[in-house]
């Protein structure tokens, strides 16, 4: 009896492990890094929760109205940001694991920056081969790793405009940057 169902169970397990067409990469594979991180930002909003969040955005508040407009065509938004108190708390293979999921034909690399001076790598990927579109950002420096995945129709100009422009307390994400990076910012 057990043998009869084994192939079915195995097939279901394998199919379950493969992301359905149209889904993005599984950002949760990075969650284990929160164990060694000093600060973690973990946002997972999709489906009904994203719609609920959008409902609570006020159309009268200018910033919230902009966000409301931006998220109209979104299917999901996922953010993982980890800050570490020492350098190299995560390995390059962790980032490579995510990067490998952002491959053609679904994703294409829009831009990439590698700074030897402050050890920062930043990459932007666009989901072009999909009707809904999407955006992925990977920013990695010795003490911080941030991965953003946005699924759905996204206006990059509107998103850039909203970056750091919303009336919420600024995160203390600058702390972890190396002195060289801080200098560059100054």
């Amino acid at each position, binding site marked *: 009896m057990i043998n009869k169902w084994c192939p079915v169970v195995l097939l279901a397990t394998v199919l379950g492990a493969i992301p359905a067409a149209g889904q993005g990469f599984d950002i949760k594979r990075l969650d284990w890094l929160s164990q060694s991180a000093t600060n973690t930002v973990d946002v997972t909003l999709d489906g009904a929760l*994203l719609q609920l969040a959008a409902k609570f955005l006020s159309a009268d508040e200018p910033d919230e109205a902009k966000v409301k407009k931006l998220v109209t065509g979104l299917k999901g938004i*996922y953010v993982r940001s980890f800050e570490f108190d020492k350098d190299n708390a995560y390995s390059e293979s962790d980032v490579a694991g995510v990067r490998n999921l952002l491959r053609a034909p679904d994703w294409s690399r829009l831009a990439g920056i590698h700074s030897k001076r402050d050890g920062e790598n930043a990459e932007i990927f666009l989901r072009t081969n999909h009707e809904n579109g999407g955006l992925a950002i990977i920013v990695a420096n010795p003490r911080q790793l941030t991965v953003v995945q946005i699924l759905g129709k996204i206006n990059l100009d509107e998103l*850039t405009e909203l970056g*750091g422009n919303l009336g919420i307390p600024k995160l203390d994400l600058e702390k972890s940057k190396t002195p060289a990076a801080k200098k560059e910012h100054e």
Partner: protein
Amino acid sequence: MSRLEDELKSALGRKEPGGDFVAQVMRRAGQPAPRRWSDELRMLFRPPRLQWVVATLVVGLIVPFGALEYRREREVRLQGQMAKEQLILAVRIAGSELRNVQQKIHRMETQ
């Protein structure tokens, strides 16, 4: 006529009531009869009237249902507020990272 006859006539003769007689009777009629403790005790065990039974049932159903609905509504509102804050945070992080990359590319191009 003897004196006795006069006295009898006077005692049995018709007398007109006082002027406030009617008012006194009406007042007495309006007052409930004083209850005894045994009557009070008996009333406790009387079957309740139908309207009170209905009213009790309605209140008994409406109040818990209302409380449940209020609690559910509050939970949804709380969840919505938290989701909204997370969404704003996510948009802010995504936007600022995108802006940083754009600025760095621009800087590199101008150098």
